[in-house]
Every structure is written in C-alpha cells, then in structure tokens.
C-alpha cells in the first residue's frame, strides 16, 4: 500500500486523499494515516512544486557544480558536504561515483551571482580541491515531465 501511495504521489503530490482512496481501493482513513506515518518517518520529507521559471518574470538560473574534495579521516565526505549544503544558495548535494565527488546544485538569479558564490564560498573551503560550474541553459525534461509539451487528444471522438 505504501509504495502504491508513493508511486502515485511521486507524479502528483497534490492528489486528494479522496482520490487516492478511490484509485487504490482503500478507505480515506487508511490513506491519510499512512501518509502521516510516512511523513513522520521522513519517507515523505517534503512536497515540491515543479515550476518552469522561464515562463515567469523572475530571473532564475540553475547550475550543476562538480566538486572534487579530499575526504577526511573518520568523516569521509560527510563533513565537507555539510559545510556546503548549509548554504541557502545550494538546493541539492549528492555524493557521486566517478570523476568528481560532490554534485552541488545551486540556484540563483543571475549567472554572475552563482559564479561569485562558487568563487567566494565554495572554492575557498578547506578540503575542496576543485570546482567546475555547469549552467543549465534549457530544461527539456524534469522529474519525468517534458516541459513545453502540449498534447492534444486527436483520437476520433467516438469509436468502437
């Protein structure tokens, strides 16, 4: 039941408890108590709105920054990761396999703002060996959703 709820909510966080109960053939009480439990257990750790900022009047840039760091005795990458994810400008941090160690996602208003953040805050941290900043120029697909795709139902209106 839990995984079923999560799979549906993964695509539509705003689905009502009533609808969830209907499509999963459960009672509304069951559904809301499961959701509450999962929130408490941090399985569900938040709700996010997917926004195409390019369609708004706000300036918004997104950068993926590859960071190489020196792991520390006893703490591995965790301590330096924490130094990084505490910054409000940082929206996500992932420990990676491959050619670099941390993928840091930074959101800002302008490229300059993000570049300055990297230069003044990130690159100068102890244990950070190098950074490589990659700006997102256009989003095609995010969280399983294709942006800017409008689909019309072209099926024959009534068919056998």
């Amino acid at each position: 039941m839990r995984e079923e709820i999560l799979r549906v909510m993964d695509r539509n966080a705003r689905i009502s408890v009533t609808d969830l109960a209907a499509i999963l053939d459960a009672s509304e009480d069951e559904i809301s108590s499961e959701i509450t439990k999962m929130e408490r257990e941090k399985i569900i750790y938040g709700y996010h709105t997917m926004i195409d900022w390019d369609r708004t009047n706000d300036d918004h840039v997104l950068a993926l920054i590859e960071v190489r760091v020196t792991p520390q005795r006893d703490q591995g990458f965790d301590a330096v990761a924490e130094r990084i994810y505490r910054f409000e400008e940082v929206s996500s941090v992932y420990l990676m396999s491959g050619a670099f160690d941390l993928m840091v996602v930074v959101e800002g208003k302008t490229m300059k703002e993000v570049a300055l953040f990297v230069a003044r805050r990130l690159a100068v941290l102890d244990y950070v060996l190098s950074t490589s900043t990659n700006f997102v120029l256009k989003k095609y697909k995010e969280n399983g959703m294709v942006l800017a795709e409008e689909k019309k139902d072209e099926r024959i209106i009534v068919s056998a």
Partner: protein
Amino acid sequence: MRKYINSKLEGLAPSGIRRFFDIASEMEHVISLGVGEPDFDTPWKIREAGIYSIEQGRTIYTANAGLKSLREEISRYVRRKYDLTYDPQKEILVTVGGSEAIDVGLRSILEPGDEVLIPEPCFVCYAPCTVLAGGVPVPVPLSEKNEFKLTAEDIQAHVTDKTKVLIFPFPNNPTGAVMDRQDLEKVRQLIIDLDLFVISDEIYSELTYGTERHVSIASLPGMQERTLVINGFSKTFSMTGWRLGYAMGPADLIKQMTKMHQYAIMCAPTLSQYAAIEALRNADQEVEDMRTEYDHRRRLVLKLLKEMDVPCFEPKGAFYVFPNISRFGLTSEEFCQKLLYSKHVAVVPGTAFGDSGEGFVRISYAYSMQQLKEALSLMRAFTEELARGQHV
C-alpha cells in the same frame, strides 16, 4: 446500367457507433468518454525501433506470414505469458491488426449457411464479417447477472446442427467482462462435445485487473486444435495506428489464412513489424505501468458511478465499464443523446454492441483522471436531473 454494388454489403446496417459519432462530431466542446483506443502514446523505445527500421532502409515487403524473427518473438511471448505453444513457422500469421485476423479467419473457415455464435454485447465486427464470409451470425445475449460471462446454458440455447464457430471475445469490449480459468472450464467440455471451432479474440489480454491474469481458452486441454487465437499490439502496447495483429491456430488453418492474406494484403507493414519485435522483447514494464494506471482509473470510475447510484458490475478487463442505466426509464440511445445534448458528454449506447446492450452504456476510461472526473461529474448532474423528472 445494372446495379453493381454487392447487395449483402449494402444490406449491412452501419454500426450504431457510427450513428452516434455523426451526432457527437457535429458538436463543439464535447467531453468524450467514447473511444475504444488507449490514450497513451506508444512507448518511446518502440517508436524509436520503428524509426530506426526506416533509417535502415527496411522499406520492403516481408514474408507473407510476417518477419520470421517477429513470429519467433510472438511464439516466445505467448508461451511466457499464457502458456501457449505455437510453431512460428506454421502456426502464426502476422496481420494488419486483430481485425484482419478476425476477417480472414472467418472467411477461411465458413461455408455458406454456417452459423456463428456471437456472444453479445461485443465488438462490432464479428457479425458483419460473418455475413460477408457467407455465414449466419447468431447472437448469444449475455446478461449482467452472469457478469456478462458466457455460460454453457447460453451456448446450448443457441446451438443448432449448423453451428460451426463460436466467437469468444474476452476480455470483452464493451462490458469489461473476463472469463477466468473456472469459467472457461465450465464451457470447455461442451464446446468439444458440440465440435465447435472457437475464434478467441484476446486483444485485451494484457489488460486484466485483480489477482488473476488472463487465461487463454486455447491453453485448456483439447482446445488448441479447435481454436484460432487472435491478438495484437494495439491495446497492450498502445499501438492502434501501427495496424498490427496476429492469429495463432492449427497449421492447416494458418496455411489457408496465409494464402488469403497473401492475395489480399501481401504482408503487414514492415516498419510496424520491426517495432513490434522491440515491444515484445523489452516493453513489459511500460505495459505494466499503463495497466496500473488503467486499474486506478477503473476503480475511480466505479466509485463515482456508485456515488451517483448507477449500478455497475465490476469489470475485470479491457478499459471499459458498462453501467446499467435502465432505472432512468430511457433507452440507451435516448440516455446517451440527452447526455450529449444537455452536458456535451459522449458515452456510447450499449445497443451499439448488440441488442442485449439495451439498458447499458459503455464508458471508456482511456482518459486522464481529470477528464474522467469532469465528465462523470457532469453525468452525475444529468442523472440527478433525470431523477427529478427533467429531460423527459
């Protein structure tokens, strides 16, 4: 000039769907729950395989019976899915949709005057194809109280010494009924005793809900040699426009069907055949995701119907529900027309699928949740108005 059009063809009534379509397509802003095809796009990996086949210049005829590699893949697929064993060399024919397989199958089997039992309500092509093949369609009305399953009594009540073929349309369009293993067992011996040949249209076989998956009647003891199994890619893989299906049956029948197919069609579209190989090999997860989504919608629609007090047996297959609207005192056609005119919601009268569909309408849930909710809330307003004596 003498009359040059075939009178048998002229005598066929246009389908009830067509009549309703003519009205609905004239109106603006219709919210339809009336289509018989999936709303999902063909999964991209399948489309990509089709594109690649064109890039590779595979733009020529295939073998009449279909690509050997596709027939082998079909053989493997039906073995792992339905425990069916068919020789790809001699017992499988790739056709232009399941529709061609039904037509060619009937024409390869029927002699003038042979009777064909057709359980109704059902998809619209069996009776016309039977007539055009020189046979005589014998409708076998199924009832809601049996959940629109075919029973031994139904067969017995309509069989004569001229009966040759039994159409077996499960999972069913329009009712959503399925025949599980137990249901099949109850008719199996009778079919054998009466020496009937079965054309089992299993086009919705991957769209079944609940714990039991589809069982093909051909997998039961003594049935394979007297069954032509029809299946295809349209519903399972959302590939209606690719026009690809297949027939599986005894080698002697497939041989004759292939001959007819060769003269009439040559071969099924080559690019579709290459795409279909990819579908059978690598799209199980995509199919499962679509099936889950249909199941969610099915439950939603059943709940919304219950809330508007419209009785509906729980369908376990396809993507239709078939609610009983007889309590409103209107015929199916009247109900659908009034719903269309007053709320601009299109559902299909049950009678479009046979006389025994009277008192029912077919609602397709091959639509987004949002559209289903919107349309059904309008239908609810309509039924409340009917209950208050409006629209009479």
